[in-house]
């Protein structure tokens, strides 16, 4: 396992805390080779290519992670990519893990995991609503929070809000 290459993150202590180490080895074995361990900040994560997400989620589900906290997206316009984050936990265990994948910003689309966890259905609808990321073979992908006639995807960094109701702090 290659040690995580800390780019501008403060280098985490060389040795991982023991329980994270155990978690990493356990899941690395389960998720297979294309899952790269990544610990930026405090939330342990595995980076996966987009097409491996659904199978990884299925294996996670069998491995006892029966509770998907949420699915969310983070917009990196400078690197022209969306980062989709799946955080899964256990209803009767202490572990929690995040699966992270990248998709290009122009016509973003990724496989839906709503067959694995039903809760993903609404979370993915919200991401589609606020980020404009399409999820393949999702049961009914339509806007969940905003009005159907709303144009634009508000949570994108480059979203210009005509009503100027969000004020940028001058730092």
């Amino acid at each position, binding site marked *: 396992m290659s040690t995580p290459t800390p780019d501008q993150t403060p280098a985490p202590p060389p040795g991982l805390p023991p329980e994270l180490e155990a978690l990493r080895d356990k899941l690395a074995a389960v998720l297979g080779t294309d899952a790269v361990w990544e610990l*930026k*900040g405090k*939330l342990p994560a595995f980076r996966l290519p987009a097409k491996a997400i659904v199978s990884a989620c299925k294996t996670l589900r069998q491995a006892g992670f029966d509770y998907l906290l949420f699915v969310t997206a983070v917009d990196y316009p400078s690197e022209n990519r969306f980062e989709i984050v799946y955080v899964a936990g256990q209803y009767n265990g202490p572990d929690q893990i995040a699966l992270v994948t990248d998709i290009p910003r122009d016509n973003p689309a990724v496989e839906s995991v709503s067959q694995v*966890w039903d809760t993903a259905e609404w979370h993915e609808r919200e991401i589609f609503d606020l980020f404009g990321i399409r999820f393949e073979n999702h049961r009914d992908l339509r806007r969940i929070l905003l009005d159907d006639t709303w144009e634009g995807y508000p949570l994108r960094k480059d979203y210009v809000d005509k009503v100027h109701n969000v*004020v940028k702090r001058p730092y």
Partner: protein
Amino acid sequence: MNAPVPVESPVADTYQDYFINMGPQHPSTHGVLRLVVKLAGETVLGVSPHMGYVHRGIEKMGEAQTAMQFTHLTSRLDYLSAHMNNWAWAMVVEQALGVQVPERAEYLRVIMSELTRISSHQLWWGVFGMDLGAFTPFLYAFRDREKVNDIFEKTCGTRLTMNYIVPGGVMEDADADFEKDTRAFLEYFKPLIEEYEQLLSGNIIVQERTKGVAVLPPELAKSYGVTGPTLRASGVDYDVRKNHPYGVYPRLSFQTALATEGDSWARYKVRLEEMRQSIKIISQALDQMPKSGPVRAKLPAVLRIPPGRYLSRVETARGELAIFLVGDGKPLPYRVKIRSPNFSNLSAFPAIIKGWRVADIVTAMSTFDLVIPDIDR
């Protein structure tokens, strides 16, 4: 006995579709949620919730406000668990900055959160009575809730959205007679829960309308990510205070209220039991709390969130609230994702209400205890 009409029964398809709009302005949706209900006579064939009427874009605002400023927004998510929401945000910021919160502040946080849980369940109990048609419980519930609000007003200054638990500890030390008032409230309220039981739980009409109604099977609940009392009523022993202990909860001994039937009656009993558990927690916390000491860690004027991903998980009165924070070294968070308990709880609702009647939608939704601004964020 209470059993849903099998939806595939012949009566279902002889009716052409009869849609009814429950909401967004409806007395028992407790907020602006619109349920489009497909009816066959009185029997519900399907429910599709429409949300977003109270969407303020709190996650977008999170990207334009510093860590200290965002606190006041979190208490406007699930305004009935204001302290716990602030605590979730404070915890994620402290996790990011690596701040150590003083001992007394930790105890104050636990007491304030448990008081909020009691006041939230009181309001739920009163409104549950009103949804079933009895108006008196509402008045009794608010009479007791006033006492909790007075305690908050004396220490935090305001009554509903307190902005008291901030990153680094709590805004101010507790009021001089905070301990005396809280103990007096516990003595005052403990016998009153029996009165609540006498008025509603003992009532056969309430039992008839809730037993066996809208059963939430545990597997379905887990798959839809349901958390909180609604889940524990279906027999799944999941409580963030136990599974992912935070603050000083490991030092306090309490049981998680559990039931197995998973129907509206179980959800009702679980919440009443939770109120009793909260009373136990508060009295223990009051005993163990250090009498004096700092209540707020020293923080730099400008909090720069180090790059990386951070996650905090808290048990609010309605389920698990998780806040996911992505920092990029600047004082403004790069991305704030709020995993709200009501959002997932509501997603399980359409699946369990098929075949029941219009009156059961109101009963079941009242036992789901939804707060709509928490869904729309």
